Structures are given as C-alpha cells and as structure tokens.
C-alpha cells in the first residue's frame, strides 16, 4: 500500500478539488484564507475574483445550474462569510449543489469575539444541507469528500466548510475517498415498484391528465424521459418557474407556467385535471394559490427525491420517493397511454382564447418590456443561457422567452433574490464557454450587484446585459397599484444613474433603446460584439405583469389585464 502523503490544510483543499474534477472556483480573499490563497498562487485551478462575496456564491450557483456539478466558493471569515448568506439561502431554496469554503479565526480565538469572527456554521445552519467546522486537520480529508458527496447527491444543496486559520497550515496524512459512506444519509433513488404500477394504472384511466414538473427534472436530467412520457401518452406539460427548460417551450403540449403569473391554460388545466403527475415540484404557494381549492378534482402522483416534500403542501394519492429521471423511465417502460383527445382539444381552445398578454395597447405606450423580451428570445440561439434577476422582468422572461433545453434558464425561484442574475450569468459564462449568455435584469435588481461590472471587464467576458429599465421596483409597484390604493411608497427610482454612463465608466460597451426599432437594432448589434455589452431598454414604467392571480386566491380566478 502506498504511504499516505502528508499535506497541509490548504494543499488538501486544492488536491480534493482536483480529485473532484473542479477547475473553476469563485471567491474573494481575506485574512483568514491567506494560506489558501497563497497555495492557489502556484495552482492551475482557475479562480474568479469577484467584487463582493455575494457575487461569488451567485456565480458558483449559476455555474452549478449549468454544469450540474457543485460550484465552489472561497471566502474569508466574518464579513466575508456573512456576505455569502443570501447566496447560500438562494441555492438552498432552489436545491443547487455548492461547496463553500470559509476561513475562520484561528482555533484559539474561536468564541472570543475576535477580529472578523462570525459563527458562520451557526448562521448557515438553516440554509445549508449540512455544514462543518473543522477542528482537527485529520478530519479535513473526509469532510471535503463528504461535502462534495452531500452537495451533489440526493436533493442537491449547499454545504459549507468553515476552517480556522491555523488549520490551513497544519499537516496530516491525506487519503481521499470519493465514495464516502455517511451513516445518516441514504437517499432513495429508484421508485417503489408497487407505487409505480399504481401510477401506470391511473395514467391509463385518466381522461384529463397533466404533467406538472419542476426544478427536480432539471437536477436529475429527466428532460428526455419527460418528453417521451408527454409525447407517448399525449399528456400536456406545465412547468414551474424552476422547471422551465425541462420541456421545450415551443412544443405543442407545453402550457407554460402555472400559478400567480402563469398562463390561463395552465391554471385552468390544473383546476380541471383529473390526474396530476407531479415530478420534482414542491407545490409552492406561488403555484397553488389558495390551497383548499387547488386541483380539487385531481388525483396526485407526486414524484420527488425528498420524502419531506411529499405531503408537505398537498396530499399525494400516490407518493413516489425517488430520482425523478429513474422513476419516469420506469413509468415509461410500463406505460399504457389513455385517451386524452378531448382534453387536448379543450386545452387548445383555452390557449386560443387566452393568449399571453403582450402589454398595454395605448398609442403613447413607448417601448414595452414584453416586446423586448420577445425580441431577445427571437434573436437568441436555442442554446442561449438566460439568467434573470427578480421582479417583473423575471416573470416576463418566464412567460415570453422560449427556453428549449434544460440548464439554460437561471433564476432565483424560491428565495426571489434581487441581485442574483448578473453574477449568475458570470458563473454561467465559465460553465458554457461556447454558448451565448444573456442576463435579463431590472434597474432595481441590477444595482444590487452592479459592482460586478468590474469583474466582467477585467475578464473580458462575453455577456449581454439586457436592463429592463422602468425606473421603479416594478413588481412591488404593481402590488401597490393593485392592493394599496396606488400609494407608491419607495418604489419609484427616479434618481437612478445613467446606466450607459455607469457601464462605460467601468469600460463596458453600452447601448440604449427607447423605441421598438432601437431595441431590435441594439440586440442585433450587441450580439455581434465581443466582450461585455449592456443595453439599457427604457421601457414603459406603468406596465404590469399579466395574467395575475391575487395571492391566496384560487388559481382559476385570473386577471388577464386592465385594472383590478
């Protein structure tokens, strides 16, 4: 047997990353991680220096959503670590695999309120899948392998390793085993055969079935199985915000997104269906509306890798715990399609009667955000990666941008993190160097991580930033218009900077569009350019996102336009 090599903590980390196949990390140095960054100086591992730690997590998150592999982050103790918190919570809510390595004050100072000390394992307890404080260098090798294993298996999620400054420099034997065994962690991958058989029978007998899929389809690469199931059994597909891309957005069986800003057809279908095949979704409140009146006529087959999601918000008639892809493949082998002809016709008539609203019809409307999104969609290649921020532009993108393949639509669905989109697009840039990356953001969201303009310039990243500039925090303004008597308390951002000048000051090429012609021309021009480009789309500030279901209302009570 080979003698185990002695390595110091910093070297162990880089060695483990190499063994895990990680070649890109995102981070920001500081006092407690000096040793790690010193080790990095001679390493072939690529490190992207961001301008705020929050951007490092979102970038790693974007990278992970595109590659399916854990994104890796380095940050220092105290404020470095606490700056990660929003990004970690974002990844946790959307089940994104991350491994975060934070420095901690030296062991002897822990608990003394030392300079730049924060209890980051305590702080991140509820927003990580698991976390570790490394007290003994001998534990570091297996903690590293456990962290990667936990992050990337079962229901994916962020795992944080907090390492005291002195531990980075201590030495211990390094033996690394990727196939680690964790006693309390045994995800179920294949579905229970009896339950799958029951599901097969229900699918055969259903006359008005729908498939309702979510982010789980993307994490488990179930898109092929889903497509085969939908097309063989002629079952329409509804995807949650997190699921967009798991089924081609231009397929005739696709009904769009359900819920608060979902399509009328999707919401009517979920109301009238007799069978929901729920795959990798968690029946979020934005989807179900008023729970008591959600899918009252339907039996529910609920497939999820996380047993705790089944029965959490809605009761499942047929619970199937397992990897969504494996379960769908199993279903396919046994599938007996039922007759859905009449149902598809009914859905078609809803789709014809209630197309997506394209915006206000007034002559003086100016540039409509919906038009901009549709142009971006029309002019982008099918494999373009789109990262959004949060708010109205996010919903318009979900509605109007046609996503055809999985791992191409990046958005903060669960936590709804403004500031996510731009750094996530940066991460995606590294994950798929050969594909176009487009960040669709708003003037509110963009200013939450605008400092990353420096990062894209320093690295000359090919990236288009489409800024949907309505001079307001549009989604909150919309709610104030509907539910708070148009009292626009602190949602009008009249004093925003000139974004073209800001971009240019950083060295980013910038364009502005205030008419439809200019918008189309700007997109075409930006798509010809190399390096980062920002387009400031000055849109009609009064546009609202329709359709809309008011919170905690049945999802078939839909406002399709006009005032409430």
């Amino acid at each position: 047997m080979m003698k185990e090599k002695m390595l110091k903590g910093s070297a162990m980390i880089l060695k483990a990353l190499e063994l895990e196949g990680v070649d890109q990390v995102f981070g920001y140095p500081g006092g407690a991680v000096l040793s790690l960054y010193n080790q990095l100086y001679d390493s072939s591992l690529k490190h992207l220096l961001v301008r705020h730690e929050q951007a490092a997590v979102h970038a790693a998150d974007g990278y992970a959503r595109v590659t399916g592999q854990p994104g890796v982050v380095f940050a220092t103790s105290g404020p470095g670590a606490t700056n990660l918190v929003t990004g970690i919570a974002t990844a946790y809510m959307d089940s994104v695999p991350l491994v975060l390595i934070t420095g901690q004050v030296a062991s002897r100072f822990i608990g003394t309120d030392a300079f730049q000390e924060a209890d980051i394992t305590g702080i991140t307890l509820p927003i990580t899948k698991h976390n570790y404080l490394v007290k003994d260098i001998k534990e570091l090798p297996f903690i590293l392998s456990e962290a990667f294993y936990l992050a990337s298996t079962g229901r994916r999620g962020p795992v944080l390793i907090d390492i005291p400054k002195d531990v980075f420099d201590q030495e211990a034997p390094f033996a690394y085993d990727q196939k680690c065994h964790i006693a309390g962690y045994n995800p179920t991958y294949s579905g229970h055969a009896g339950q799958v058989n029951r599901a097969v029978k229900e699918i055969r007998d259903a006359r008005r079935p729908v498939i309702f899929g979510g982010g789980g389809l993307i994490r488990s690469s179930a898109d092929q199985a889903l497509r085969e199931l939908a097309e063989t059994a002629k079952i329409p597909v509804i995807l949650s915000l997190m699921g967009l891309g798991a089924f081609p957005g231009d397929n005739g069986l696709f009904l769009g997104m359900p819920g608060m800003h979902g399509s009328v057809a999707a919401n009517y279908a979920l109301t009238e269906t007799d069978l929901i095949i729920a795959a990798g979704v968690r029946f979020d409140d934005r989807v179900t509306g008023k729970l008591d009146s959600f899918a009252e006529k339907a039996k529910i087959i609920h497939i999820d890798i996380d047993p705790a999601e089944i029965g959490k918000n809605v009761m499942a008639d047929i619970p199937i715990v397992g990897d969504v892809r494996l379960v769908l493949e199993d279903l396919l082998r046994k599938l007996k399609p039922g007759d859905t002809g009449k149902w598809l016709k009914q859905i078609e008539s809803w789709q014809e009667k209630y197309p997506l609203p394209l915006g206000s019809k007034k002559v003086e409307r100016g540039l409509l955000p919906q038009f901009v999104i549709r142009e971006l969609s029309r002019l982008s290649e099918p494999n373009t990666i789109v990262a959004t921020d949060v708010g109205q532009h996010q919903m318009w993108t979900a509605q109007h941008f046609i996503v055809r393949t999985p791992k191409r639509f990046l958005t903060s669905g669960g936590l709804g993190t403004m500031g996510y989109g731009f750094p996530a697009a940066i991460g995606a840039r590294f994950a798929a160097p050969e594909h176009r990356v487009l960040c669709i953001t708003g003037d509110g969201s963009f200013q939450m991580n605008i400092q990353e303009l420096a990062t894209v310039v320093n690295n000359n990243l090919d990236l288009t930033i489409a800024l949907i500039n309505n001079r307001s925090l549009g989604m909150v303004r919309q709610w104030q218009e509907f539910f708070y008597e148009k009292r626009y308390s602190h949602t009008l951002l009249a004093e925003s900077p000139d974004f073209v000048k800001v971009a240019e000051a950083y060295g980013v090429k910038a364009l502005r569009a205030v008419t439809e012609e200019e918008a189309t021309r700007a997109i075409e021009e930006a798509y010809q350019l190399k390096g980062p480009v920002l387009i400031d789309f000055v849109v009609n500030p009064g546009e609202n996102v329709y359709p809309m279901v008011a919170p905690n209302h049945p999802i078939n009570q839909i406002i399709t336009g006009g005032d409430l």
Partner: protein
Amino acid sequence: MKHVLAILVENKAGALTRISGLFSRRGFNIENIAVGETVTPGIARMTITVEGSDPVIEQVMKQLHKLVNVLKVSNLSKEPSVMRELVLIKVRAETGSRSDIQQIVETFRGKVVDVSPDSMIIEVTGTEDKIEAIKMMLDHFGIREIVRTGKVALLRGAKITREA
C-alpha cells in the same frame, strides 16, 4: 395529540442545535426534550415530546430524517412503550406538615431526598398523569421550585430502536 419521538443522533458538535433549530424554524413546538448517551459510543438519544396532528408529526419526522447527523427517528406513541419522567420538587415543609407530605410521597412511591428546617426536596418518577397528580397534592403546602428531566421512553418487549 402529543407524540413522543425517539431520535438517535451522532453525538457531534452542533447536532443538538440542528435538531432544536429545526423545530423552531418550521414552527413545531417542543413540549419537552431529554438527551443522553446510548450503549453505542458516539450516539446520543433524544426523546422529544411534540404536539401536533398526524400529518404535522409526519412532516416533523421527515424533516428530522433529512438532518445528516440523525440516524433514526421513531414515533413511540404509535407503539406500546414505557414512558417516564423524573421530577424534583422543593416544597415548603414546616414541622406540622412534614408527616402529611411524607404520606403523600409514599402513596406516589416518591422519595424525600433532602430536608431543611422549612423545606423538603421530593423525587418522583412516573408518567405525566402521576406527576401532575402529586404536583396537585403538594401544591397545597406550597411548591417553591420544580425541575423536570423531560420524558424518556423505551418500546415494550424485546424490540429496540436501532440506528439503521
């Protein structure tokens, strides 16, 4: 309904916080909690009493299972089991009332474990009902302080709650 959960957990730093944090975060109320080592080194057993409907308890158990350090969760209220709690009660006891107190303690098969000129400490073990009953009886003399261990429980018969 009250449920008594037995949780086997790796005795690692923060494991207890993870469990109690989960209850507060998800809005589940812990009625009482008892922790101690098991026969297997490195594995602790927690007994948690929690109030909730069956679906709520099912959700509690599933969420507990998701914690990496948790090895086993079982609901002992669903099976025949022995449940006990130990209580120490400091009761006001002047010379005139001592024999009355002593008699109550004997009836409940408790023990007097400390005596001072004007107070006594009584140790009593039992089910919730029994403890409530003796509390009520002693209340009359004036309970000055009370401390409870929280409920502990084991399945009846040869069956045991194992890690795997």
